[in-house]
């Protein structure tokens, strides 16, 4: 049982650490790092599914008859690209936030937002 599933469990631990960093940290860049870890661990979950005992990389070659499953690899290639796209957009937003708020701490930003909200109400 442990040997059957250990890989998934470690990956879940990593995933949850990333998820925790993402939702608990106060610094926007650290959040993005958390997001990256969260996503990379999901990628590992997929790739773990594709592994076949005794298999090799799915590139057809003479004298090999067991290959690992290529489909998860394809999916994750796409997902990695989506990940970097999201990361770069998020970082660009962080730069703009820094320029307009002069801080990248979430609590300070929310505080400033609350103040502007009150000003609009007044």
């Amino acid at each position, binding site marked *: 049982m442990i040997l059957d599933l250990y890989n998934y469990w470690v990956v879940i631990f990593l995933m949850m650490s990333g*998820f925790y960093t*993402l*939702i608990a940290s106060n610094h*926007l860049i650290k*959040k993005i790092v958390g*997001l990256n870890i*969260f*996503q990379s661990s*999901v990628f590992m*979950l*997929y790739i773990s*599914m594709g592994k076949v005992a005794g298999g090799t990389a799915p590139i057809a070659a003479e004298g090999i008859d067991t290959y690992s499953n290529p*489909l*998860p690899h394809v*999916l994750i290639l*796409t*997902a990695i690209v*989506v990940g970097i*796209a*999201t990361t770069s*957009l*998020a970082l660009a*937003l*962080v730069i*703009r*936030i820094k320029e*307009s*708020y002069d801080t990248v701490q979430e609590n300070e*930003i*929310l505080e400033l*937002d609350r103040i*502007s909200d009150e000003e*609009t*109400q007044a």
Partner: protein
Amino acid sequence: MINEHLPALQVVVPLLAAPICFLILNNRLSWLFASLVSWLCFAMAILLVMEVKDGAVLHYEFGGWAPPWGIEYSVDVLNAYVLLIVSGIAAVVFPYSWTSIQKEIPESHHRIYFTAMMLCLAGLLGMTITGDAFNLFVLLEISSLSSYTLISLGRDRRALTASFQYLIMGTIGATFILIGVGLLYALTGTLNMADLASKIPALEGSRTLQAAFAFLVVGFGLKLAMFPLHLWLPNAYAFAPSAVSAFIGSTATKVAIYALLRFLYTVFGADFSFNFMQVQWLLMPLAVASILFASMVAMFQDGIKRLLAYSSVAQIGYMLLGISLVNITGLTGTLLHLFNHALMKGGLFLTLGAIAYRVGDTRVKSIAGLGQAMPFTMGAFVVGALSLIGVPLTVGFISKWYLILATLEKGYWPLTVLIIISSLMAVVYTWRIIETAYFQERPANAPEVKEAPLSLLIPAWTLIAANLYFGINSRLSTDLATGAAKMLFGGSLL
């Protein structure tokens, strides 16, 4: 020949129009091109609806590879219906954009705006039409990335924070969906929705299947702003440029609801979702909470856009309520509300855009006296507000009527009362606006305000008129919604 490729063209045309929009250097040409493409999409959606409205299902295999090996698009009544909503709203919002963004977005960004809108449209259409679970994720990300961009175009700096928050929540949602799809894949070895649906019944009781279900529901819940995961929505709608609020506010959450329905009914099957997982008992309290809470908050908002955003959260509550009733009437109500809410919120946001164009501001107090200064704009707003409340002869009434029927059918009369109470709350929050506009004098020092230009009024009135038309002659929308609801329940009526 074209007909046969219609499902693919529906998405590929806007998808490829986006880079072309970016390559056209002239802003006006870029806008004309984008508007044309949006009309073309609408026309294609109409053709698709014609083809499938009698229950036919169209399939399209990308690359000529048969599913489950290749990616498949499949169009049935439900997809076509949602396609019609999304492309219809786009066909109105794109022409509207030109005048609206002149004052809200710097000129250097106009081309980027049209490109991003085009990408967003393509992503939403693709999410609706695809028959492949992973392809859904990819298209979801296309539409999400472009909507983050669009929201961040807002003038206020809070647009940036709103966009960032949406990005974080949206990406968590997308990753949850990815996990859910991954677990399903691990169990079945396939990604095609129809294929998944044929393999899942054999797995009932598998704990992995339950986890996949949970992740998909939460993931789509984040995307559709299900209470209490709605926190990203109010600011995102409030600070985005008006045309963007109108487009995203009336399409993005609808498509997410569609995707949830698709997974609940088609992929997992109604039996698994509602009999085994009993998801309705999760959705119902959340729906009730979101209707009450969001309507309550909306009553105390001073920014009209944020008020409408909270009202959207409440309306999403109605849609979830319809799903949680698990009968055909309720589901019809949900589907009708998808259509009707898109019409009313689209119309209201477009009207607000016209106000923002003339007044430069959309706070409740800054519209004082506009009833006289901008009679056509405010007239449109009043009709939209009536529709939001659910007054007979407007579309709002039709969907609420179905929901009330569904609650009575089930005998859940407290829910009937809830729907009526929340309609009264809608009266309260819209009345504040109408009162300020018609019964308060415009402040003496305020600058003179003219009626909004026709290029804004015509699109806004188009949607508002649709509110009335489909409120009076609701055959088209009800037929489609009933057909889709019946199809979702299939033979297995609960």
